[in-house]
């Protein structure tokens, strides 16, 4: 096949995947796929890659080849060894739950004692200082590790190591690379680490700006931006901004650290 033919086929695949073919063209292309399994395989692979790596929604195209592969996985999961694995996991979940309930029981028992202490000090209320709140709640060392099994993440781990080794200026230079393209899978992770690195070297304005970018992104982690901004304002003892940020976080119970921020609001 020469290059021109290859280009033409690719154009057709693009039109088909992007749903820009006329009904007639689509019908002809489907027929072409029916008699040419290699073409069909290419189309399905490109659809799958577009959806998986680039988050495109191509659900208008039916995926026939999946059925057989899926059936193989289903049959494997139905075998005795896998059913035993699933049972072990379910049992572990139930043991874990029971242990947690027991802990909670002890915890609530101790609440009775705590109430007594509370009553004894209620006539002498003392507002927690912003510094104490910051010390109690700051969690800069609990950033999630994004190191996984493939090469992209291995590269990212170099930045995590720089951060953990407190080489913040180097980690800033490193994480900036991940914060230029919002469609990058590690975009929000990059912003989280970049903001924390700025904070560690007291570049608070840069840290705030970084977290604003995180908030503006449509990532799952976006609401974490508000939390880290709150920590910075607590550190800076900026009462107005603390109140505004607390108010913003408490607008939506789905926001990161919602219940912790409720505690902070009560303590303020």
């Amino acid at each position, binding site marked *: 096949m020469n290059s021109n033919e*290859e*280009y033409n086929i*690719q154009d057709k695949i693009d039109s088909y995947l*992007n749903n820009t073919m006329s009904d007639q063209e689509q019908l002809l292309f489907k027929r072409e796929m029916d008699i040419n399994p290699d073409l069909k*395989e*290419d189309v399905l*692979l*490109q659809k*799958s*890659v*577009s959806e*998986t*790596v*680039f988050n*495109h929604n191509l*659900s208008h195209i039916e995926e026939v*080849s*999946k059925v057989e*592969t*899926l059936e193989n*996985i*289903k049959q*494997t*999961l*139905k075998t005795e060894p*896998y059913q*035993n*694995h*699933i049972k*072990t*996991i*379910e*049992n*572990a*979940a139930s*043991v*874990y739950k029971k*242990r947690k309930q027991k802990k909670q029981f002890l915890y609530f028992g101790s609440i009775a004692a705590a109430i007594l202490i509370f009553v004894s000090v209620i006539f002498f209320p003392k507002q927690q200082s912003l510094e104490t709140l910051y010390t109690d709640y700051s969690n800069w060392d609990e950033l*999630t*590790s*994004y*190191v*996984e*099994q*493939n*090469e*992209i*993440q*291995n590269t990212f781990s170099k930045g995590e190591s720089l951060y953990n080794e407190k080489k913040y200026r180097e980690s800033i230079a490193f994480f900036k690379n991940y914060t230029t*393209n919002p*469609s*990058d*899978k590690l975009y929000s992770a990059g912003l989280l680490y970049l903001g924390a690195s700025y904070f560690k070297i007291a570049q608070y304005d840069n840290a705030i700006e970084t977290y604003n970018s995180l908030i503006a992104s449509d990532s*799952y982690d976006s*609401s974490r931006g508000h939390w880290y901004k709150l920590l910075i304002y607590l550190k800076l003892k900026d009462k107005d901004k603390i109140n505004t940020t607390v108010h913003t976080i408490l607008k939506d119970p*789905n*926001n*990161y*650290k*919602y219940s912790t921020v409720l505690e902070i609001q009560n303590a303020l």
Partner: protein
Amino acid sequence: MKQNKKYLEALVNNNSSIVVEIYTKFYPKIVSFVLNNKGRKEDAQDVFQDALVYLIYIYKENATEIKSFEAYLFTICKNIWRRQLKNKKEHIVKDGVYSIKDKITQTSVFILEQQREDLYTKCFAKLSENCRNVLSLYFNTMNYEDLLNTFSYNSADVARHRVFKCRKRLMQLIKQDKQYQIIK
């Protein structure tokens, strides 16, 4: 024995006490992630269980090497939850109601999709940096003009040629991987 291996072996060998340890150590983080992302505790339970089944599956069937148990488990849980949210949204849009497939089918669909994602991401990472940037930008915008401006290509034809080459290379890398034949 390294922690990663310890947890994977425990899952594969049904070692109850270590599987409980996995719950104690990692489950609270997943609960908080799901609760922070429009989910409930029951959702977190399903997500965590599916993620553990996935780890067993790829460890047993594909002998996949996992460098960090914690980070990979967290990513898998995030992916499961992302897909569930997306499916809910699509089903609501399409049917007005969310139809629930049987559990084993749901888990199988996830296993297949995650295996594909792992393979594609691995192959994508093998491309040159320029190819990765070109493809990311092209698939983001579906527009050769943006490539012209960003990469200073002389014409849309040159940009088109570059996208074609990079995409072809990515497809080749995927097809050459032995895993592809199993999950295609």
